[in-house]
């Protein structure tokens, strides 16, 4: 019998160390076929919404959607896809399957998953779909969560999102009150030189802690960004404010047999002294 002096498995070491240092990791999807199938369903739904025939090249169709949809209609398209695709019984299980091993190594194997997966479509020069510098935990979300951020096209530079490395983010957060006058714009200007603009080809996924500062700016690239995002947290960790808690925002996806047994246990009663 091989003896060991660690509780960690070999496969979780590198991911965990990199994640703790930077607060994010970019990895290959664990099931490329499922990714292509998921993207195809979204493309077909988008084509139906705009009355366009099913495209031959999914990536080009998404990249060039701004040539088919005016910017003032982009939010209608986004909301339509959000409602339709989130209504599919395969959507969340497939989304999770794409990164299950990575999520389990970073968070745990008893998980709660966000009830609905968010859609983001950012056309070139569109200022209506911005998500300024922020940290999700500032808005009352749990600090024990990660985000699975899935680009449906190759994203880079302003077509992508930016993130601040963990050490720099934590440093600026300790002196956040110093920016009360200028607000988050002043924070952005202060950290701008340190921002990392993530270059993520289609086929790779970003998993990050939204405790660190992140966001996006106007997409100045010639093609449209499409991305999905969804949060996971340990089932038995503290949740955020009411609207971001279990039920309203999260639901259990991988409760284990012992947990079910434990929840079913009823202490005997009725004794008298």
């Amino acid at each position, binding site marked *: 019998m091989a003896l060991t002096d660690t509780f960690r498995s070999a496969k979780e070491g590198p991911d965990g160390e990199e994640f703790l240092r930077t607060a994010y990791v970019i990895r290959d999807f664990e099931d490329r076929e499922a990714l292509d199938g998921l993207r195809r369903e979204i493309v077909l739904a988008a084509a139906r919404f705009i009355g366009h025939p099913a495209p031959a090249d999914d990536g080009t169709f998404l990249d060039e959607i701004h040539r088919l949809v005016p910017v003032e209609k982009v939010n209608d398209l986004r909301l339509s896809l959000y409602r339709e695709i989130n209504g599919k019984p395969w959507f969340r299980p497939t989304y999770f399957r794409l990164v299950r091993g990575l999520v389990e190594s970073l968070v745990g194997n008893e998980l709660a998953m966000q009830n609905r997966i968010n859609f983001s479509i950012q056309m070139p020069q569109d200022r209506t779909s911005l998500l300024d510098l*922020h940290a999700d935990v500032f808005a009352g979300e749990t600090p024990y969560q990660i985000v699975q951020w899935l680009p449906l096209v190759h994203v880079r530079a302003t077509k992508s999102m930016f993130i601040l490395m963990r050490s720099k983010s934590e440093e600026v957060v300790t002196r956040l009150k110093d920016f*009360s006058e200028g607000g988050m714009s002043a924070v952005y200007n202060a950290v701008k030189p340190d921002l990392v603009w993530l270059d993520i080809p289609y086929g790779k996924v970003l998993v990050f802690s939204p405790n660190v500062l992140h966001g996006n700016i106007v997409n100045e690239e010639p093609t449209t960004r499409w991305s999905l995002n969804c949060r996971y947290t340990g089932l038995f960790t503290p949740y955020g404010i009411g*609207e971001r808690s279990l039920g309203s925002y999260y639901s259990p996806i991988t409760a284990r047999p012992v947990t079910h047994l434990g929840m079913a246990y009823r202490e005997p009663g009725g004794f008298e002294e």
Partner: protein
Amino acid sequence: MSAHQGLRGYVTARGFGPYVIPVPVQSLALRDYCARKKFVYVLPGNENCFPHSYLVLEGLISDLSSYEGIVMCSMFMLPQRAERRRRLCQHVFDQGCAIHLVIEDMVVADRQDVENLEQLLLIDRLAAQAPKSIALE
């Protein structure tokens, strides 16, 4: 076409005045307001939940050059200090923009509107100090 288009939303998970409204419900209210008033609705900034922080609001108003103004659920989401509120409103006006308040159905677009707003907030504060009932004997 005008350089200013649409209203930038502003939401908060904190309670404000007599209200505690979940952010998704606030977003629905802002979206509905913009649809009714024929404004393009621009996705909202979500204020930090820690007390007395207006970092997101201050950030939003620092550059409104692309928008017609900002829209939020209530006047009670503005800073509690009158001096800070006035400065914030003036900064919005200086950019040719206005503040839209959905619950009060009020648009704060100039100095007179600020005076009306301040009067309303003052009366609300005084009314809260009034006794709930008066003993007759």
